[in-house]
């Protein structure tokens, strides 16, 4: 059975996010969207700035874990839709690497679910990130 794929090669485009939002205008039971976006931050380390993050994953296991996170969220909150996209490969500073899009009838459940989902994505999914510094050296984030 083919597992659903939540990974996008490289950055997630703001235009894509706008299109995803527009795509939900036909769902008339939705009253609230909660969206979380992870953006690559120019942290400083030993006087050097981060220029990009390279994401790698155990993709098959990660996709299963994300499907589980979705199932758990639908079981816990009355959600209408839940879409998750995560970058793999190189994403530069200022670009977006994570897009969590929760839609529900009402605001409370959309925001509560989003917080839980973002925490779960951070801790329970087999993804790793390597900061690529301005001098091309690398730093694994753990």
């Amino acid at each position: 059975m083919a597992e659903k794929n939540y990974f996008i090669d490289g950055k997630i485009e703001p235009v894509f996010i706008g299109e995803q939002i527009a795509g939900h205008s036909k769902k008339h039971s939705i009253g609230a969207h909660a969206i979380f976006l992870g953006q690559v931050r120019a942290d400083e380390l030993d006087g050097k700035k981060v220029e990009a993050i390279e994401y790698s994953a155990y993709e098959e296991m990660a996709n299963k874990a994300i499907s589980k996170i979705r199932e758990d969220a639908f079981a816990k909150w009355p959600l209408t839709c839940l879409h998750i996209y995560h970058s793999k490969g190189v994403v530069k500073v200022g670009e977006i690497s994570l897009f969590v899009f929760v839609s529900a009838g009402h605001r409370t459940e959309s925001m509560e679910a989003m917080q839980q989902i973002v925490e779960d994505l951070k801790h329970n999914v087999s993804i790793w990130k390597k900061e690529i510094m301005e001098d091309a050296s690398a730093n694994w984030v753990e």
Partner: protein
Amino acid sequence: MHIKILFFGSIGALTGKNEMVLDGVSGTDDLKNHLFKTWPDLKNYTFRFAVNQELIEENRALKDGDVVAIMPPFAGG
């Protein structure tokens, strides 16, 4: 008996490879000792095993065809 080993994140950088096949490891404790012998620096790393994509906490016996992933702490987002 063939066990497929997958290396991820910083541990892949340490071993210099993404995967390898091992013979004659009876379980994950045995595998850990084998890896520590080959890459002594691995002792300084925090990692967990997943056997056939299932995270394990204690020693797990391994059988032919098993896939073991050596995984540093996750860092999604």
